[in-house]
């Protein structure tokens, strides 16, 4: 290469190629091509030979001409050597994936960027062109991609308030850098939606826009998740929870890990104290639906939890441990299949079936390959492998499994003798045969090992390894969207709501409170009695009743006259129709409730407790189905929703005990709590549904600096309630609010609110208010 010098030339590639074949040496040829680049960058010279070799191998001779011409043009853009280098390196592979003809559109895009303030994006654009093209595999799709890119560029360029179009798009370079990764997970239309969301929401925030398009921000990842294909864990948590409970009498938090951002090292399912970790999305595979892949993973983990015992790892070599894991996994799967024979089909569809001769033991470590085959054979009666050792161990495994009870330990011994029997020198080789040996539905087996030498394992092992089937409390989080008033759109799955049973105190405390308000209760009782009767309904076909039902009486008379047996039920009566109101009482349990109420010795919390007890007593007297829950929040990742009374529970000591333990802390993310409460209330079969929200201040949370945001979100939640036929009503205890000064409450609840200004009178006001509302 060093030999040739830049020299102008009018040779075209075709002639050059012909010439090369005939007369010119390779070096002379290269020199001709080089001159056409018309550049002085030494860096370009360094890679030129390699690039040309690739180009000549993958492009037509016209393609080579166009390639050189385009590279020359890019070199003249005045953006240094980088874009040109990128193009020289990327284009041959790009053309191979989508065809040479795409060059025109690509060059058009580069020109548009060059003319706009976005020249800096040209380099990342070219850099990622080849991997993008490899994912798209057609010129039409690549053009769509170019369209998305240009659209993003146009809409985000220079739109910072008031200035002229002199600012480049903040997000474009990041987007281009992420493009291959995005297309690895999204279709083009998914990508388009993701881009649109970013433009719509962050057009005015250069920094946030950058975070979004570089996949740094949470909502960016959430939207990406939403646009992905396959079965999402977040959409199926209940389904999988039912699966665990129904088929396996187990239950656990299901925690998704992302499969999107770690493409090289695929994460593997596992479980620990905090829950079962699953991929966030499972696509259909080998005819198995995503949801069934989740079920396979869960079943396998449940099997370990039931039947595996941790083994001491220190004494065994890594090979031995690997073998023990394979054998133990098969024991678990066999036991699972015994419970539900249909699991075999599921497991086999997902289990790799390595070719018997796929691994060359002369050059490669084949232990993994052998074990994967063995694992297949242990589950698949039709494995068809001929290896004698393999078949012997399959038989020994089945014999062992015939025993009434088997243990991890027994199968581990079988595994050790298998390793001993099949050992090969080459097992030690660095080059390991990995292809087709990973059983994706199996977890990483971290729970299978304990280490005597302390300190090497960061994760401590649960002392209680075996988990007996049992009734479990505590539910996986539910995710709710939050309204972003700035962009006038929802942030999907923004908030995690954890529901738990409120802890219990002493039920007698509540009875004492009720006792204290005995006089008030008496007064309320009168009002309750007045509330009970409602519209009357007629009941016909009564033998005894208040009025004669003429129609029936005449029919009976005719029957009687004609000698048939008359129906004696000729009367009718009236019955008062029951009220049909379901109530949800939602209590704000945020920190501020611990303050003393103005003009009282009691805290707001204590007063609320009294008021709620009286109200609950009253509603119970009326017989309306009602539920009570408290909430507080500690950022959007942790909204705690505490179950105090459910619709199916009675107003009894258990419920009172929970009420007695009411405690306050943290912040008020009201919208999420209302959405979650609505989830239960809307399931009630009542004509009228009332959600009472008892709160002492405006919605807020520590991770939200913009006060308006959570107010607007609550307001949006109220709108959603309306749509669900739920009547929300706020009882505000905000002492700072005076009539006329109630701006945020009104913003959220419209006319549906009351402000209790003498909080000490809350116990009296609350039940009365309720009765007035439901009269």
């Amino acid at each position, binding site marked *: 290469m060093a030999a040739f010098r830049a020299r102008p030339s009018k040779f075209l590639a075709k002639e050059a190629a012909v010439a090369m074949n005939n007369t010119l040496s390779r070096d002379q040829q290269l020199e001709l091509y080089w001159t056409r680049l018309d550049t002085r960058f030494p860096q370009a010279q360094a890679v030129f030979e390699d690039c040309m070799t690739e180009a000549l191998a993958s492009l037509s001779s016209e393609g080579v001409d166009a390639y050189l011409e385009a590279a020359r043009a890019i070199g003249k853009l005045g953006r240094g050597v980088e874009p040109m280098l990128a193009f020289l390196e990327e284009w041959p592979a790009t053309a191979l994936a989508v065809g040479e003809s795409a060059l025109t559109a690509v060059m058009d895009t580069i020109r548009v960027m060059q003319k706009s303030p976005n020249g800096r994006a040209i380099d990342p654009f070219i850099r990622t062109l080849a991997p993008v093209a490899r994912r798209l595999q057609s010129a039409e799709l690549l053009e769509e991609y170019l369209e998305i890119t240009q659209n993003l560029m146009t809409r985000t360029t220079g739109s910072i308030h008031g200035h002229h179009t002199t600012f480049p798009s903040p997000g474009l370079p990041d987007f281009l850098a992420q493009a291959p990764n995005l297309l690895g997970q999204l279709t083009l239309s998914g990508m388009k939606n993701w881009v649109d969301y970013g433009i719509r929401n962050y057009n005015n925030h250069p920094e946030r826009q950058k975070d979004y398009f570089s996949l740094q921000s949470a909502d960016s990842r959430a939207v990406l998740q939403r646009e992905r294909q396959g079965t999402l864990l977040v959409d199926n948590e*209940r*389904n999988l*929870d*039912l*699966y665990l*409970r*129904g*088929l396996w*009498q187990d239950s656990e938090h299901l925690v998704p890990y992302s499969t999107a951002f770690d493409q090289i090292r695929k994460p593997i399912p596992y479980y620990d104290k905090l829950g079962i970790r699953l991929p966030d999305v499972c696509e259909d595979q080998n005819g198995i639906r995503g*949801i*069934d892949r989740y*079920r396979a993973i869960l079943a396998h983990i449940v099997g370990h939890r039931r039947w595996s015992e941790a083994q001491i790892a220190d004494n065994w070599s890594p090979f031995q441990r690997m073998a023990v894991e394979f054998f133990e996994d098969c024991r678990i799967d066999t036991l699972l299949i015994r419970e*539900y*024979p*249909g*699991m075999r*089909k*599921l497991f086999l569809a997902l289990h790799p079936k390595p070719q018997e001769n796929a691994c060359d033991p002369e050059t490669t470590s084949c232990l993994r390959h052998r074990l994967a085959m063995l694992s297949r054979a242990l589950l698949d009666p039709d494995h068809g492998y001929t290896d004698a050792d393999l078949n012997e161990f399959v038989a020994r495994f089945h014999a062992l499994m015939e025993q009434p009870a088997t243990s991890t330990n027994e199968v581990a011994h079988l595994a050790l003798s298998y390793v001993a029997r099949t050992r090969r020198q080459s097992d030690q080789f660095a080059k390991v045969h990995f292809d087709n040996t990973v059983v994706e539905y199996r977890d990483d087996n971290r729970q299978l090992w304990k280490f005597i030498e302390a300190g090497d394992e960061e994760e401590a092992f649960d002392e209680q390894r075996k988990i007996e089937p049992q009734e479990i409390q505590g539910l996986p989080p539910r995710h709710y969207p939050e309204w972003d008033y700035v962009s006038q759109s929802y942030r999907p799955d923004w908030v995690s709501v954890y529901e738990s049973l409120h802890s219990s105190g002493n039920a007698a405390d509540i009875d004492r409170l009720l006792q204290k308000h005995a006089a008030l209760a008496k007064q309320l009782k009168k009002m309750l009695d007045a509330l009970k009767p409602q519209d009357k309904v007629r009941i016909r*076909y*009564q*033998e*005894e009743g208040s009025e004669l039902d003429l129609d029936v009486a005449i029919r009976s008379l005719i029957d*009687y006259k004609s*000698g048939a*047996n*008359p129906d*004696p039920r000729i009367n009718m009566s009236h019955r008062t129709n*029951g009220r049909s109101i379901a109530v949800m009482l939602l209590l704000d349990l945020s920190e501020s409730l611990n303050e003393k109420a103005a003009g009282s010795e009691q805290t707001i919390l204590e007063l609320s407790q009294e008021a709620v007890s009286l109200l609950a007593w009253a509603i*119970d007297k009326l*017989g309306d*189905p009602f539920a009570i829950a408290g909430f507080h929040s500690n950022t959007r990742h942790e909204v705690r929703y505490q179950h105090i009374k459910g619709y199916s529970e*009675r107003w009894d000591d258990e419920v009172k005990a929970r009420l007695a333990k009411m405690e306050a802390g943290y912040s008020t993310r009201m919208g999420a709590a209302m959405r979650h409460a609505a989830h239960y209330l809307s399931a009630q079969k009542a004509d009228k549904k009332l959600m009472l929200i008892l709160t002492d201040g405006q919605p807020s949370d520590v991770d939200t600096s913009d006060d308006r945001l959570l107010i607007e979100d609550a307001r949006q939640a109220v709108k959603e309630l309306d749509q669900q036929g739920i009547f929300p009503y706020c009882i505000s205890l905000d002492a700072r609010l005076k009539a006329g000064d109630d701006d945020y409450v009104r913003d959220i609840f419209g006319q549906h609110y009351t402000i209790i200004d003498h909080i000490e009178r809350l116990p009296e006001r609350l039940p009365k208010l309720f009765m007035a509302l439901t009269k």
Partner: protein
Amino acid sequence: MTDKEQYKIQAEPFYQQQNNEVALYEAAYRNRLPVMVKGPTGCGKSRFIEYMAWKLGKPLITVACNEDMTASDLVGRYLLDEGGTRWLDGPLTTAARIGAICYLDEIVEARQDTTVVIHPLTDHRRTLPLDKKGELIHAHPDFQLVISYNPGYQTLMKDLKQSTKQRFTAFDFDYPDAALETEIVANETGLASDTVAKLVKIGNVARNLKGHGLDEGISTRLLVYAATLIKDNVSPVDACRMALVRPITDDADIRETLDHAIVATFT
């Protein structure tokens, strides 16, 4: 006088004892104590009473209660005919006269005022006043009152009054354990027990979901239905969907879970 033979159970009903309820019932009967059988739907309450009536050789009169039922439906009423009026005993009266076991099924369904008429029959008086007829019946020495009651259904509106509850001795029924239930369904339908065991397994999947979207699990009765269909050459998967899943829920997630359990069990 009514022919009491017609109320006798002719052939021995198949009943699989769960605990020692047969002996306990016999003791209650010996002393003519009123009995309440509690338990979820389709777990064998009615069958148990039928069996006991057969075993004791006593007539059995069963009344399925509903919300339109009035006291007259139990006690009796005057009918009109050519000759004027004629009194017709209700089932409860008949039972008291002939000395039958009177089984009021799902008594909670009946209106509250109806349940009160049974009170005098359940205490030491063992009498039944027929107000309209102006007659006071003293129950036959063999007469016994049995009611059934499904605690799962109770709402605030529909619950037995304490004063009613406290007049009965009670049996708590529940779905039998897997081995026993398999035996019951196999016996009842003649289906091979390994297939029945699979049905029972699916039944238990549903019962595990009680309170998580299901109000009631799959009853033994439904398992019997499914087994009957399979016995008639319906494919097990279809039979299960039709007899076990579709009747009990419209919740999509639960259906999907149960459908999956069926496929996982039968293939």
